[in-house]
């Protein structure tokens, strides 16, 4: 899944990254096969507001749905949004960053202008505004989150590209007559990917949190059962008043754990990068 | 301190870096002494272990290194000292000048503050005298207008001025031993003479200088004694004039031959990697005089004409 995992060194990084990978793999399995893992079908209804017992480990909600089932199905939504929005922003950010750092001149000025404009757009209010006009389905949400979060990646990638495009190996590749496209793909990207990867992980985490906040505010698709939506439901449909912690705590924990796992994995690559620099 | 004991005495020093794959013998069985008020130059190619010795003296080697042998500074074994005592010795008794002064200075502080900080930490002079001490040090290092120089940032100074500032910092603590680690590496001719001037300034006041360099011309100008290292071993040591004018060891001869004034005649081949040293003499593969015994048995240091030399020929 992630390039470079093969040379993961547990002696150097400790066992936390391994734990993160296990957590993420578990979440991924849950997201891929919710039908097999969830105890009930998605639309099966029981008595509402049931306390946890053996049949319903996390009780039921106001509509009588099994909360554990909801939680399992929500994993898919939350992870999809996180990874796709992160991926989209990674793609845009890396492409613009490398282009502007490598080509410089007016291309750089233009791209950085756009980046700065994107940077000053307040994310959540903008999404709220968009939500007011378009009914945001999952793909719209991914698109918006992805399109609004690439600018930091672009800036980091640009700085790094500028730094290495004066390095001897880029100079000599240019001198030997390699076309720019080949230099970017073959020479620049392999060197800067330790910078891109932590950024990717952080964007994933950021997208998941944004999605949760939006759903909590009730601004995303009401049919989209994500973790954020579950907390929102618990809040608005009596979960908090009845102190049904088994309703709102599990999705909260899920968000925390997945965001932590993703960020921590990214941090591992960050420390790796610094070690290369200090050498 | 006994009057008879030498100033800096290194006996059978071996340094090994322990890496997961294998152990790298960076320095093997090196012994030499430095007399007070002289300049000792260690010359050799990069990777021959000369910088490692400097770092070993200050005990700033990486954690995975294994040090055997003794380093005695003014008669006391540096490796028997507590870390806190060692910290006092660093800077105030033994100062080090690294290569490239532009990078050795902190770019965001003025020169004055950079000279002041070590003086404050080590409390070399009393508070009232500090200001004058700093200015006089700057003046002594070659700034004609120390007041002005003190108020500059490193980026406003030329390379030569930064070199003088670094000298001022090192000298302001009045260390008795100064170690200069590759002070001329990658510099152009004008800068080299700047460095040379500051190093002369160091020796001037009965200080001792340990010069680590691959620049033979610099060593010839400044040094009184010289140690030639090859692949972690001392191959020849003695008085600088003797060694450089009449080299005995084939490697020293080769080095002198490759100087510009001798027409750039190179030594063939490469130094062996420290991870894979030959069984016999370490220079045997490149040596024009090598005989069978050189490839089988390592040479032992012997004494000839007042010099230590490690070669089967003698």
């Amino acid at each position, binding site marked *: 899944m992630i390039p470079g995992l093969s040379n993961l060194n547990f002696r150097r990084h400790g066992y936390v990254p391994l734990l993160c990978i296990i957590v993420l793999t578990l979440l991924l399995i849950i997201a891929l096969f919710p039908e097999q893992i969830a105890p009930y079908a998605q639309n099966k209804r029981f008595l509402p507001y049931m306390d946890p017992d053996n049949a319903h480990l996390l009780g039921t909600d106001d509509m009588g749905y099994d909360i554990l089932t909801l939680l399992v199905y929500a994993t898919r939504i939350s992870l999809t949004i996180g990874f796709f929005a992160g991926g989209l922003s990674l793609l845009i950010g890396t492409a613009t960053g490398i282009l502007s750092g490598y080509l410089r001149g007016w291309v750089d000025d233009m791209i950085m202008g756009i980046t700065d404009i994107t940077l000053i757009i307040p994310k959540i209010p903008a999404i709220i505004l968009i939500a007011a006009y378009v009914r945001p389905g999952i793909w719209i949400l991914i698109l918006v989150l992805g399109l609004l979060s690439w600018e930091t990646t672009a800036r980091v990638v640009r700085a790094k590209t500028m730094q290495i495009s004066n390095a001897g190996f880029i100079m000599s590749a240019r001198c030997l007559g390699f076309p720019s496209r080949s230099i970017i793909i073959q020479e620049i990207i392999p060197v800067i990917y330790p910078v891109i990867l932590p950024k990717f992980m952080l964007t994933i985490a950021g997208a998941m949190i944004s999605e949760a906040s939006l759903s909590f505010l009730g601004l995303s698709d009401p049919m989209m059962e994500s973790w954020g939506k579950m907390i929102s439901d618990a809040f608005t449909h009596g979960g908090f008043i009845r102190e049904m912690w088994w309703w709102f705590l599990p999705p909260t924990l899920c968000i925390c754990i997945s965001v932590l796992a993703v960020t921590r994995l990214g941090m591992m690559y960050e420390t790796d990068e610094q070690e290369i620099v200090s050498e | 301190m006994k009057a008879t004991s030498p100033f800096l005495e290194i006996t059978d020093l071996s340094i090994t870096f322990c890496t997961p794959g294998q152990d790298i013998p960076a320095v093997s069985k090196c012994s030499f002494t430095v007399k007070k008020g002289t300049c000792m130059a260690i010359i050799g190619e990069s990777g021959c272990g000369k910088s490692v010795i400097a770092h070993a003296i200050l005990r700033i080697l990486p954690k995975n290194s294994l040090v055997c042998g003794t380093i005695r500074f003014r008669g006391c074994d540096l490796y028997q000292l507590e870390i806190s005592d060692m910290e006092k010795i660093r800077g105030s008794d033994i100062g080090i000048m690294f290569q490239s002064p532009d990078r050795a200075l902190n770019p965001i502080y003025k020169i004055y503050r950079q000279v002041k900080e070590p003086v404050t930490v080590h409390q070399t002079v009393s508070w009232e005298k500090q200001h004058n001490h700093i200015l006089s040090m700057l003046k002594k290092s070659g700034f004609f207008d120390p007041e002005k120089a003190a108020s500059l940032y490193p980026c406003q100074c030329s390379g030569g001025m930064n070199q003088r500032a670094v000298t001022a910092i090192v000298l302001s603590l009045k260390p008795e031993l100064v170690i200069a680690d590759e002070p001329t*590496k990658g510099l152009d001719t004008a800068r080299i003479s700047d460095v040379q001037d500051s190093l002369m300034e160091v020796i001037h006041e009965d200080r001792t200088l340990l010069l680590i360099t691959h620049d033979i011309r610099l060593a010839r100008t400044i040094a009184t004694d010289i140690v030639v290292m090859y692949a972690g071993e001392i191959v020849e040591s003695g008085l600088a004039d003797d060694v450089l004018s009449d080299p005995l060891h084939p490697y020293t001869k080769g080095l002198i031959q490759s100087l510009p004034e001798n*027409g750039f005649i190179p030594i063939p081949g*490469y130094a062996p990697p420290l991870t894979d040293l030959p069984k016999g003499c370490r220079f045997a593969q490149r040596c024009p005089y090598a005989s069978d015994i050189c490839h089988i048995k390592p040479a032992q240091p012997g004494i000839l004409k007042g010099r230590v030399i490690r070669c089967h020929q003698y």
Partner: protein
Amino acid sequence: MSSVLIEGKNIYKEYRSGLTGLKHTILNNCSIIVYTGETVGICGPSGSGKTTLGRILACLEEPDSGEIWFQGVNLTLTSQRIKNEIRKKIQVLFQDPGGTFNPVRKLEVTMNRLLQLPGVTLPKGGWEEVLHDVGLQTEILARYPHEISGGQAQRLALARILLVKPELIILDEPTSGLDISVQAQILRLLKDIKKRDLMTYIIISHDKDVLSFMSDRILNLENGTLKLASQAV
């Protein structure tokens, strides 16, 4: 009289400091003529613009004004396509040879990538022959750039350049930072290659000894212009 290989006419180049916006003139009305087969040394203290001049001649940077002519073609006016063609004939041997190889790749990957270039083919003897010419063995290709010494890296960089079959090699401080004995080896090697391939060199260095050993004539770069410093008889 041999033909003119490269000529720089009235090259002007300035840099603008990012913070203060102050202009700093590096090259001012700088002209140079290099004939086929000769070795021209360019001398000057650090910061005098030697490297910038080398980069401009190698088409790695554009001059602010002035013209570069290579074999009768005005490089400042031609299309990018022709310029790319010509650029291959001018190669640069950089200082800090270790940095001229991609740090995250094994050397064989970097070297094999060369063969993707149009017109670059391995001789019959393969890498062994190429590396043997510069005094290296093939096992070096299995290493990473940081695992080889400066001298070896400079030899490999030279081998790489020779594969492209250049007509002019700009040597930018080829031995700065190398040990004295290695410096002698590299300089000797460069001389041998010049004799074998009848190569033209422009050698940039601050070391007058190196320059007088290598060059037919030495130009001094002072205040942005070149002046003849010495000529071998």
